[in-house]
């Protein structure tokens, strides 16, 4: 989505500023994230409704490894910090700094996704499959959707590193970094909500 939006730079305004003063791309990204809130809202509600519904298989309290997930959550939150550093470097026109911090952000994100894969495998081995119970279906769907969002973010970050190195970023480079940053922070914020509701509050 954001890839789609990023490059439709300033046409139509052609030398004029926009009516709101904000760039089209930025407004579009905010709107998209607003829409994403409802997507995760639906998924989180489904999980909250079903988390206690286990007829067979493990219950939420039996499979969660809270210290492990706390560490991977911390890593994801730290990636927001490095993302901010990337945006700041991009605004200072520091290409080296930008690519460095984007890469670090992507690596932290990848560590989080790796942790999630490990966690899913461990849960599966403990008997919680996707089809085992309502808890299993809704847990994997919610956290899986979030994991896919992080993965898409990583792909965007790495693509951005690639096109910055080849100097083929269409439009305003700092803004492109900022927009992907918005997406990245959003995904992090959603994780805070998921981590709190799914892991920390007992079912």
């Amino acid at each position, binding site marked *: 989505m954001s890839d789609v939006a990023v*490059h439709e730079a300033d046409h139509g305004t052609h030398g004029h500023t926009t009516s*709101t003063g904000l760039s*089209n791309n930025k407004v579009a990204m905010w709107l998209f994230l607003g*829409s994403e809130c409802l*997507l995760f809202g639906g998924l989180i509600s489904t999980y909250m409704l079903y988390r206690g519904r286990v*007829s067979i298989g493990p219950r939420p309290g039996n499979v969660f490894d809270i210290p492990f997930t706390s560490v991977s959550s911390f890593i994801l939150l730290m990636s927001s910090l490095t993302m901010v550093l990337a945006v700041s470097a991009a605004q200072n026109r520091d290409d080296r700094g930008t690519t460095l911090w984007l890469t670090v952000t992507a690596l932290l994100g990848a560590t989080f996704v790796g942790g999630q894969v490990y966690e899913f495998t461990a849960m599966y081995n403990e008997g919680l499959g996707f089809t085992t119970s*309502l808890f299993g*279906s809704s847990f994997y*769907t919610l956290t899986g959707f979030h994991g896919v969002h992080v993965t898409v973010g990583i792909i965007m970050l790495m693509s951005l590193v690639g096109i910055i190195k080849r100097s083929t970023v*269409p439009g305003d480079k700092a803004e492109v970094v900022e927009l992907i940053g918005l997406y990245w922070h959003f995904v992090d914020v959603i994780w805070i909500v998921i981590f709190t509701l799914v892991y920390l509050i007992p079912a």
Partner: protein
Amino acid sequence: MAIIERPTTAGGVELAPPATPTRAQGGFKRPVSTTGWKSWLFTVDHKKLGIMYGVMAMFFFVLGGIEAVLIRLQLAAPEGKVLSASVYNQMFTMHATTMVFLFVMPMAAAFANYFIPLQIGARDVAFPRMNAFGFWCILGGGIFINLSWFFGGAADGGWFMYAPNSGPIFSPSHGVDFWSLGLQIAGIASLTGAINLIVTVLNMRAPGMSLMKMPVFTWLQLVVQFLLLFAVPVITVALFLLSFQRNFGATFFDVSAGADPLLWQHLFWIFGHPEVYILILPSFGIISEVLPVFAKKPLFGYPFVVFSGAAIGFVGWGVWAHHMFASGLGPVSVAVFSISTMAIAIPTGVKIVNWTLTLWGGKLRFTAAMHFAVGLIVLFTIGGLSGVTHSVAPSDTQQTDTYYIVAHFHYVLFGGAVFGLFSGFYYWWPKMFGKTLNEKLGKANFWLMVIGMNMTFGPMHILGLQGQPRRMYQWTEARAGEGFFNLAFWNRIASIGSLVLSLGILLFIINVIKTARSKERAPLDPWDARTLEWMTSSPPKEHNFDVIPTVHHLDEFFHRKYEQDPVTHEYKQIATAEEILADQEAHADKHIHMPSPSYWPIVLASTLPIITIGVIYSIPVAIVGGIFLVLAMFGWALEPSTAPETDFDPPASGDSTKELAPLV
């Protein structure tokens, strides 16, 4: 095409210079055709896309209409044999799905695409390629849903597809899979379209056009796009859950695993009720343009119409459970949703009052467009009143799942949404095609539709209150009752009505063909209109306006044509549309940079059905489709939306005033 450098002898025909892409960015060299089918397939022009949306929607309107007539034929006689019970279930499911998602929504999108940029004085939408992508998505989704007819039967759970009926046990064919995945693809179109149009309206208004100087059609479309933005993701979640259950064995709606069937109902109607306003508000917008023009008066209480539209948009989120009064929500929920539903009648009533007062004391001209607009006011009010009876929960419990409901939503959707769209056809046809639809045929079209729709849906009030259940596949003479309430009689009337209705729509199609064949050009400003879209040529030039107008008034175009006498307070004409257009052409911008056509929207959209077919039949196919999707996204991202100047032939060497030979 992309760069338009006008010959300095202004006023002539606009022609794009030849363009030769010098290099491929993102995989393909750009398409350059300016005529022929390629110019449509790869276009990003909002006007061409608007027409394509319209053609597609009209096709599905006819298809959905045929399905409706088959339903009525089945019910025309006792123990109908036209359709089998199973095909009947598929027929009413697909009739509703087609009409809601593949006719009214894309037709409203057609008008939005075509007229929002024109009404706000912009040259295109904010994201032209995303606009094209949206069209190809909804077309792909529509075809995909209907493919199910040929692959073992269509979806058969009714348009709201309640669980557990939608599960594999009760609906074993792949119909529901095609339905849910196809709607998912169509949903992408709604989401991208919503983002695109909101950004366009917020950011690309002509200088001077503050929000409260925007035409009402644009305003109400803005509300609709916000509703779509927030409603679509909710149905997306519901459809994902359904697909995961049917295709990957998840348990979301499996009651034996402890699932709550109400989850689907909540998710569906949280989307579904805003959806109702998504369907009707564009038509409200259209007639809010039509009525002032043909009453020769400004819209009565413009701010009230705008704010009541926004109020409908807000309150529309708090009424969804009135679809679920019979599901045992408990007295508190029922009371809350009952009251909020009554409350939403208020902003709707405000609109009805405003329209009526717009007519009051106006110099009315009863053109075909005006007929349909007035028809909407009357028929929608009838549907609105039966809607208020649903908000009263005890009464609704009697009406739930009867023909009374069917009567209600056809009055608001057919008498409301569809009449508004038809009003738009007759009003804007001269703008879009430069030819006026035949007025005489148009009025015949109107009267047949009014008579047909009242004959079809009017008796359904009686049928429903007498207890004929919705979706009943046959009735028997023995149980039809007697006298005024004889169900056989009213069913027959309804079936005859559906044929009259079809005849009306046939007249419209004949009218379109006749108009297309006629040589007669429409005048530039046939209706003495008030808004900016009438300030350019008909059909509009590719870049819409030679000069972006500076706006000083609500109804800017009217105020450029008329001036108020300071003493008598009467308006007198100071300029004609032709003079205003000639003035613009004389001062035309020399260097207009338009977005370039692209292969990527259609390429990217075509990967989606591959993925969904894969999800149903074979996962490896879905993975291949997914790889193509990612590749196409990269191609898209690497291609600048507006071709670099070096891509043009002869290369523009920085001299923006250079004359180019017109291409003939």
